[in-house]
């Protein structure tokens, strides 16, 4: 199953349409899209405007590959569940976001394992054709996070400030 999610805030029809076009050509593959509150309706894939956190988790677990905008929620949950992730950053010049921060995020994501970044429809179609071969991410970089937790604990419980 391919799971598309564009986040809970703003629709991303350019990505949703592209995934739906792929679904139309590949009826043997189950595709589900969480497409946001938008007037556009998919023709081929199953879809919902907004999923609850539980439904989202359920689909995420079932998916072979995740397709998403460059949102951190999806990046973290894909890494946590070891799912290959295809990311298309939103573009501010197309009205898909307030600013181009997803382009910056995407540049960084390209350096991480298990994440592929695409910018256009052709690139996405091509990658979905070989979705079965995409490698999963290594997991979350937990060392850096543990260091953060330690410093925060010292601040919260002992009032220790790491910087003066």
């Amino acid at each position, binding site marked *: 199953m391919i799971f598309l999610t564009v986040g809970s805030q703003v629709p991303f029809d350019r990505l949703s349409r592209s995934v739906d076009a792929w679904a139309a050509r590949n009826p043997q593959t189950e595709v589900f899209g969480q497409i946001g509150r938008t007037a556009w309706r998919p023709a081929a894939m199953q879809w919902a405007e907004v999923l609850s*956190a539980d439904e989202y988790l359920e689909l995420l677990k079932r998916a072979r590959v995740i397709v998403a905008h460059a949102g951190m929620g999806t990046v973290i949950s894909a890494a946590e569940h070891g799912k290959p992730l295809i990311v298309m950053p939103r573009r501010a010049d197309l009205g898909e976001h307030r600013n181009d*921060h*997803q382009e910056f995020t995407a540049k960084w994501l390209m350096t991480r394992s298990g994440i592929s970044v695409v910018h256009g429809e052709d690139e996405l179609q091509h990658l979905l054709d070989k979705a079965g071969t995409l490698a999963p991410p290594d997991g979350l970089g937990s060392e*850096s*996070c543990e260091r953060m937790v*330690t410093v*925060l604990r010292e601040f919260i419980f002992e009032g220790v400030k790491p910087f003066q």
Partner: protein
Amino acid sequence: MDNRSRRPRILAVASGGGHWMQLMRLRDALLGGDMAFVATHFSDYRKSIPPGARFYLVTDANKKDWLRGTLLICELFWIILRERPDVVISTGAAPGYFALRFGRLLGARTVWVDSIANVGRMSLSGRLVRRYADLWLTQWEHLARPEGPHYIGAVL
């Protein structure tokens, strides 16, 4: 009040989605405290918080929608009055900004962790919250400065 000084009251605040996921990556930092969580969008987030912690769902708002913004501010002010936190921590965005400001007003120590998505510069709320954050953190080493924001690690 002895008990309270041993067990700080912590208010942890994040918008739904990526901000919330990052807050959950840091939840081990809060364990042992008297915890309350605030989020937007998803009421089923209450199932992912540590046992015994309280949960509040607040209005999602951005700077363009003053009515929802006003509602959010009222909700957060009420929560802060009710919770009287010793520490307020947020990973963003708008709800965290107001929670840190109100928390500070009532004497709480405050932590801002800017989202890891902000690779190029601190988020708008992250920049605005600077004066109200005792710990003002970025998750990117190259954005850290001696006068802040500071870097102590990243959630992934």
